[in-house]
Each structure stands twice: as structure tokens, then as C-alpha cells.
């Protein structure tokens, strides 16, 4: 497995540039806004001299280059700055909101995988039959439905019409396990459906392609049982693109949950971002962007390593 370690190290090395790019881009974004952070922090009746003073204290009068390196250094040490508007450290705010988002994203991922992969294999095996047609139509619907509208429709159907399940908010697992799950069901479905439809389609297409290949026939000629062939021969070789897309989408789930969080009043970083946007609290927005961006890069590395393990002939040869 030395090959795998080498591969992993190489990928991490490549990613350093991207991470640096992320931090730089995020830094630059703030400079593009017309708002003046000093004016936001200062009390309403502050004199312009006071505002200037605040500006200097905040280090905003230093040349950009200096501010840039200071920012780089801070972020490298894990310090995402201080929120002007709320007077709280950005790290604390994000750490407070991140678990809720991760929880939802992870649940959506599991929901999507558990349904899409078996269904994709089934559909591929029954290609051309009514089962296949039905699942294809459903997946098309899932792919075409905006997640926020789906969320609202779910709220309309379940809590409003049927009277079960809450309409929003979150309850921690330690407080009440049943309530925790109940609160998670609808947001998970809303967030995970698009994901599920996408992965279903990909799995089905890939499996159909693999089923036609000679090594599958050879495996049958060997007398291997169908379940081993389906999983270790067909699926294992179909999964590479699916895993890649799943990884990409997962990263997008973390930010894309913004809208679903809004619909269900879910206290995650999406909601935090919107609050910050409404109050022009750039340190929070920047902090979230950095966390999300770097998280995405890390997920990509993990996905690549996973793929290298599953299909060594592609990455390591």
C-alpha cells in the first residue's frame, strides 16, 4: 500500500495551491464590497475622527499586502477573525452552526446512497422493463424539483395536511432522540432528493455499461454466484465516477443546504451565512466560505484516495 500513501501525499501537495487560492479569493472579496467595516462597528453617532480611529485599530488602513499576509497567517493558524457586527469570534459562531449542517448533509448523503445505488443496479438489470421506466421517471422528477420547493411541499403535505412531523427547527440528539429524528426527516428528504436522483442515474448508466463487458461474462463462466458478481465485479468497477460525483455533490450539499436551512429554520452555517449577509458581516461570510471551500478540497482528496483503493488500475498504474 505504499503506492496509495504516495498517491495520497501527491494529492495533498497539489491541493495546497488550491487552498491558497481559496483563501486569497475570499480575502479579495471583502475588498470589493463598498461597505466600510469601521462604520459598521462604530456607534451610530460616532464622529468621523472616531471612525477613522477605529479603522486604524482594526488594521484596515495598512496597505493591502500587509493585511493580506496577516490574514493568511491568521487563517493558517485557524483563526478566522472577529465578527464586527456581533462581537463574537467567527470560529465560535461557525463551530456552533457547523454540526447542524454536517448532520443534515450527512443524513442526505446516506439517504441518497441507500436509495440510489440499489435502485440503480435494479434498474440496470431490468433495463427496458416497466420497472426501469418507472424509476427513470421518478428520478427525472427528483432531478427537476428545486429543493426548497420540495421542502415546502413536504411541509404542506406532512405536518399541515397529515398533522405529523414538525414544520421546522432542530432538536439535538442528546435532548430527545425521537424528536431529533422527527425533525430531521423532512429536511433530509428535501436536501437529498436531487442528490439521490443524480446518483441513481449515474449508477444505472455505469452498471449498464459494465454489464456488457467481457469480464462479467468471464465471471459467470467461472461459476461465481450473482451476488458476488454484482458487487465485486460490476459495482466495484462502476462506482468510480459515482463516487467522484458523490464527493463533489457532498461538498455542494454543505453550502447548498442554505436554502433548505431557510425553509426548515435549521440552525446551520447556511442560516448563519444569510444572517451575516443581511448585516454585511463580512468576517463571518468569509469564514464560512473558507471552511466550506477547504472542506470541499479535503473531501475531493478523500474521494480520490477511495477511488484509488477501489480501482487501482486507474490511479496507481
Amino acid at each position, binding site marked *: 500500500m505504499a503506492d496509495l500513501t504516495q498517491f495520497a501525499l501527491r494529492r495533498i501537495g497539489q491541493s495546497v495551491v488550491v487552498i491558497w487560492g481559496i483563501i486569497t479569493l475570499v480575502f479579495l472579496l471583502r475588498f470589493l464590497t463598498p461597505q466600510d467595516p469601521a462604520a459598521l462597528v462604530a456607534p451610530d453617532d460616532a464622529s468621523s475622527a472616531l471612525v477613522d480611529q477605529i479603522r486604524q485599530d482594526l488594521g484596515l488602513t495598512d496597505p493591502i499586502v500587509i493585511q493580506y499576509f496577516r490574514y493568511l497567517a491568521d487563517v493558517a493558524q485557524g483563526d478566522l477573525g472577529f465578527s464586527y457586527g456581533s462581537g463574537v469570534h467567527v470560529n465560535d459562531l461557525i463551530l456552533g452552526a457547523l454540526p447542524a449542517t454536517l448532520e443534515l448533509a450527512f443524513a442526505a448523503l446516506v439517504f441518497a446512497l441507500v436509495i440510489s445505488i440499489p435502485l440503480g443496479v435494479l434498474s440496470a438489470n431490468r433495463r427496458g422493463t416497466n420497472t426501469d421506466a418507472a424509476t427513470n421517471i421518478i428520478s427525472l422528477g427528483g432531478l427537476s424539483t428545486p429543493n426548497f420547493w420540495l421542502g415546502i411541499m413536504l411541509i404542506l403535505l406532512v405536518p399541515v395536511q397529515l398533522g405529523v412531523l414538525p414544520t421546522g427547527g432542530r432538536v439535538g440528539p442528546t435532548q430527545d432522540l425521537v424528536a431529533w429524528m422527527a425533525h430531521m426527516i423532512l429536511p433530509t428528504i428535501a436536501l437529498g432528493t436531487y442528490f439521490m436522483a443524480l446518483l441513481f442515474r449515474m449508477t444505472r448508466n455505469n452498471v449498464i455499461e459494465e454489464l456488457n463487458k467481457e469480464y462479467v*461474462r468471464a465471471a459467470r*463462466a467461472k*461459476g461465481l454466484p450473482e451476488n458476488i458478481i454484482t458487487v465485486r465485479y460490476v459495482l466495484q468497477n462502476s462506482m468510480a465516477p459515482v463516487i467522484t460525483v458523490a464527493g463533489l455533490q457532498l461538498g455542494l450539499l454543505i453550502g447548498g443546504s442554505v436554502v433548505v436551512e431557510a425553509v426548515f429554520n435549521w440552525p446551520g452555517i447556511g442560516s448563519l451565512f444569510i444572517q451575516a449577509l443581511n448585516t454585511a458581516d463580512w468576517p463571518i461570510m468569509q469564514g464560512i466560505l473558507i471552511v466550506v471551500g477547504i472542506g470541499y478540497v479535503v473531501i475531493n482528496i478523500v474521494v480520490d484516495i477511495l477511488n484509488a483503493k477501489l480501482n487501482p488500475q486507474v490511479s496507481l498504474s
Partner: protein
Amino acid sequence: MTDTAPLLRVRDLSTKFFTEDGTINAADNISFDVNEGEILSIVGESGSGKSVTGRSLLGLIEAPGEIVGGEIWYRSPSLAKKVDDEIVDGEYVDLQSVPPSVRKSLLGKDFSMIFQDPEESFNQSLTVGRQIAEAVEVKKRAETGEVYSNIDLLKDILTPGAQYISEESYDRAVELLELVDIPDYTERADEYPHQFSGGMLQRAMIAQAIACDPAFLVADEPTTGLDVTIQAGVINLLKNLQNELDLTVLLITHNLGVVSRLGDRTAVMYAGEFFEVGPTNSVLNNPENPYTKGLLNSLPDFTESNTNIEPIPGNVPSLLDSEMGVGCSFADRCPAATDECTGSPPPTRTVNGDSEHRITCVHAGDTGTEVSLSTETTAREELRQDTTSKNIATNE
């Protein structure tokens, strides 16, 4: 002439492919026998249907293909006891009539196959050793009666090193790699197919195919993808193994050189039909069918520098049902063709009084000796009528 009954008797096998463009007659009413312990070569150009024939015997035809007619009698006393009497004829069982699960159960135990392109035929994501061990395990479980279940699948996914395969199977896999002359066989077993060269991978495929000690092996173009220098090694390996293990082999190839080295008997196939069958020496040295002659003439003769190579004019005909005629399918390219050839199906006759050497042609063969292409001279009707007869008509 063999004095033991054939291992396989194929009668009127027809395999068609139902495609969007039409129905293709890949194998058109073929009859032949495969004798125990022999290497029968089926020779023909691409598209002649030889590969389809081999796969039909093993039951590996998938949609849009289907075996639409005929019988495949397999001599297996043990199997004959397990199935319905209607499909048994003495020690023979008609594989076309057995339940699919029974047919499938023969794969990897009684029957085995070597595929043409080893890179395409191995799972690139699993080690070679594991894949060979799997083949060993299949046979082992068939003998011990241990059944495959989802527990095995779980073990396979959750534990490293495919714990559902027993240690002995793995050890045997390594032995097999040694048997096929792969150097560093212990290390190689843990490597992946992409780390093997073409020739070595083909040897590994052979190892996998003989892992279950099969009664019958189909080798589909085993040397075609390989460099010429490597081919010789693989051919020798096959010959030796076949001798040592007393395998019955159906060798499918378009390479006459391979046939001359390996085949005991040779069948020449064209457009889904057998044109000539007989001992390899006879067929290659005294071909009677114009197609066979043409085929041999189109090879460069390395001993004589002055002879011209004569290619066969024209193209291989379409196998589409709608386009095939009643008569001989070679008629439009045959130098000896006459009107008689296209009017009706050409007869099958013996050649030079040798009942082993048969030919389907209007113009060749010993006249008046119409026979079937199999070594059975008795008509198929007799087999049907007398299903309880223990006395299959002998070779003649």
C-alpha cells in the same frame, strides 16, 4: 476413429441474434461431436459464428442472442441421474432442456472457458490470485456442498483479503500460477491484471480455466491478442496441459498455424455453417471444400518463394436472416459454384472414403455417401424415437 462415446453431441444447433437491424443467423443448424480427450478446432474468419458456437455450448449466450433450436447432448452419468427422464438419453443429457439453474451449475465445474482478450476478461480491480482462487473455490464448494450466501458477500466486503475464499483455494491458485509457468508466482498472485504482460495474463487466464479441473474447455482465440513470439509459449502450454490433464478442448481460432499444432480434429466454419470436418491432417493437407482450399491458399507459403497468395474474392456474406438464401452461403465467392449450389442446401458427404473426414459441398466429396456432419451416421430421428435406448448407434 474413437472407440469411446463422444463427450458432447451437438445436433442442429441454431443460435440467432435478434437485433434492431434484423435477425442474424450466427449458427445455422450445426451438428458435430466432440470426442473425449481431443482438441477439436473450429476454424473460420471473423463473423463465421465460431465464437457463438462455443458460447452456445456453455450456455453463455445473452440477449439479444438466443439459442433457438437444436440439442446439446452432454455425457454425464451423474447429471443424467439428477434430471427428468425425458431429457436423458442413456448417459447423455440434453443441456438445452435442463432447467437454467442446472445449466448454470455446470459452469466453473464441468465447463470452463478461456477468453480472447485477457485484459478485458479479468476484473481490473481485483488481484489475479484472488480471481483464480475464486474459480478454485467454486469447484471446492460444489464438491463439499457448501452453498454461497449473502454472508459470503458481507465477509468479502467487510474484511480485507476476501475472507470468504478459503486458504486452501488461495494456495491452490498459487500452485496453478506455477503450473502455467509464471515466474515469481507467489508475488504475482497479489498483483493486479494491469501489472501483467499480455502473454502472462493469458497464462493466468488458462490457470483460472483449469482451476476447476473441467471436463470440457472452450478456448476462444487464446493466442489472437498476443505477440507472435509469445504465442508459441501459450500454444505449448495448452498442448502440455491438455495432455497432462486429459482435457477435452474446443479450440476456436482463425489462425491455421495454431490449428495445425494443436488440433486433433478440425472443423471449418463459414457464415454459421460447418463446411468441412475431419482429422486435422486430412483437412489441412487434403482439403476438399473450395472454401477450405481457398483459405489455405490465402496463406503465405514460407517454403516456396514463387507462389502467389490468392485471396478469396468478395466479402463474408451478411448473416441477416432476410438476406440469406437457401443454398450454399459460399456460392457467390466460390470458383466452382454452379446453379445447383444456390438452389438447395448442399449435401454432406465423406471424403476419400474416410468417414472421419466429411464435407458439405455440392461438388466435392465421395458422391452417394450423404451423411451427417457428426460422427453419428444414424439420423437424429432415431435418437428421438428411442429415448430409452441405451445403445446409441456407434461411429461408423
